[in-house]
């Protein structure tokens, strides 16, 4: 019975996550990814055979007869803990990237992407994409020139 509840829960979470991931707004995509990892975590949790009911803790060591068939499997919780930490870190990184992207958009320079469209570029941006590859080089050139000018003005 509990297994069925878990299965339904995982299915609903995955469905919602897929729907959100297919949206164009980056925030929804982040939420979708969060739900997706939650769904997978629930899936792993569902493997711990929780309908056995007993926590895997020995209260009375002397009375224990070696029968472990009623214990819930504790390993999935360790797996989930690791997975949560990893997905949390990556979610934070994605949000930082989105924030960076947002500030780039606000500055109105160099970035011709639309904010609400993480994958498709505007046609113009597609044309500019090749130029964009070398922005970092041009930045270096600009920096050098500025340094040179600063040096000359000091003289």
């Amino acid at each position: 019975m509990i297994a069925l509840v878990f299965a339904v829960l995982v299915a609903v979470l995955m469905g919602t996550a897929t729907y959100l991931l297919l949206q164009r707004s980056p925030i929804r995509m982040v939420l979708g990814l969060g739900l997706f990892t939650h769904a997978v975590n629930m899936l792993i949790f569902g493997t711990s055979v929780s309908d056995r009911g007993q926590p895997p803790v020995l209260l009375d060591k002397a009375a224990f007869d070696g029968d472990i068939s009623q214990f819930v499997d504790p390993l999935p919780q360790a797996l989930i803990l690791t997975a949560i930490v990893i997905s949390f870190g990556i979610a934070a990184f994605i949000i930082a990237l989105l924030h960076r992207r947002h500030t780039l958009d606000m500055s109105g320079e160099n970035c011709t992407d639309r904010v609400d469209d993480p994958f498709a570029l505007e046609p113009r941006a597609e044309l500019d994409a090749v130029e964009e590859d070398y922005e970092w080089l041009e930045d270096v050139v600009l920096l050098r020139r500025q340094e040179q000018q600063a040096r000359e003005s000091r003289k």
Partner: protein
Amino acid sequence: MNVNANWLAAPVVLPLMAAAVSLLVSTRVTPKQTRIQRNVAILAAAGNLLVALFLLWLTAGGDQRIVLQVGLWPAPFGITLVADAFSAIMLTLTGLLMLCLVVFASGTLDERQGLNFYPLLLFLLMGVNGAFVAGDLFNLYVFFEVLLMASFVLLSLGGRPAQVNGGLRYVLLNLLASTVFLATTGVVYGTLGTLNLAHLAERMDAAPDWLRIVIAGMLLVAYGSKAGIFPLFFWLPASYHTPHPAVTAIFGGLLTKVGIYALFRIYPLLFPDLLVEWQPLILTIAALTMLVGVFGAMAVKTIRRVLSFHVISQVGYMVMGLGLALSGNQLAAGFGMAAGIFYIVHHMIVKTALLMAGGAAELTMGTGRLEKGYLGGLVKRSPVLAGVFFVAAFSLAGIPPSSGFISKLGLLQIALDAQQWWIAGISLLVSLLTLMSMIRLWQKGFAGPQEDVVAPLRRPNLRLTVAPIALLVTASLAIGVFSGPFFEWSSVAARQVLDRQGYIRAVAPTDQILPIGEQSH
């Protein structure tokens, strides 16, 4: 020979420690800090290469696997690290590439770009090394994530718009692939009750067919999207051309190969019969990957974009090796696997050299655009750089006596032997198209006059830049000329990968606990 298995932890621990130490000086941004970080990275990369060579020397005979049960927990309960000849070969190559890359990066990065580059590189090294020695599915997942996290940051280091755009695609799609991988580990644990690879290999034979197909399919999707195989490759050309050339070089040489390594490790161990049953599927994927990569390379117009697409087409050849791993009439079964491993070795060396040389050309000329004569004249300007690019490019295309020729020949031989004429034909066609693409790069990028000077740039330090490329190119030529012993070596590794019973015996999972499903339902 009796060896202390704790050596196996060194490829993971050493880069981690070095990265942690070099992060200590990351508080202030000065050239001095970057220099300290670089020196630590050089030391760590050299030490890592030595450890890898030691492990290679131990396992090269092909009859020994080094197994470390971390914390002395017996096999299915604790973390298991395993190294056989294949792992050791991959570890050695990774160490070599990483050392070359640190030197290359110190010649091309300036102080501002170099900030915290080296610690991230060391974290990447830790993840890659860990994936090569991981002995269970969940640790494989964790090490994948470690290397991905480092690669996310490396890719977007600098934070330019193109990098942020490319980085977002890369992060989202790789995170989805990792989540599929995690879901697979959930399914595996829920149904078979274990995650240890040797233990899984024992239990997989008794598992019902539908379950094995589900697991194999999910793993193919998860590893395939890391490796960049046909329908799942699109994150690669969207992002690989955006970061600094040094980053592109190590990504192109290492990261997709970790996915390929996982496929080469897991499939023969867990689903040897599916390798035969699914052969048409795997070969179709291989053919489409090759074709898409090589046609994509023709359509794009900068050096690094062209080379990124060639990463994909080359991955197709490796998948072809996997598809033919167990077939063979005249040749022994396992020849395909050996050809695939040999191809990985060749590809990692040559691709990194090529991406380094292309990146150095971009830096020297200020642009990588192939049209309108932006590039050109590099033959006169720095003939050594042009020379190493030439050799690397023609090794990639498969011209003798380079390693590319031998590795393609091996794959062709097994394809003809297994009477898969069509895949042999496609691989030849793709070879030809690769050669054309390389000639185009050469003509537009290096030979001929330069018509339009884009930006007079600080030149990269040519000695530091060319030396690692020359070393890698020499290695490629050496592998091509002395192909006999090298191919014998990959045959030994292939035999060991295919030897499931040996793997199970070496890891020796001990428990008698039944799969969970059988107990409670």
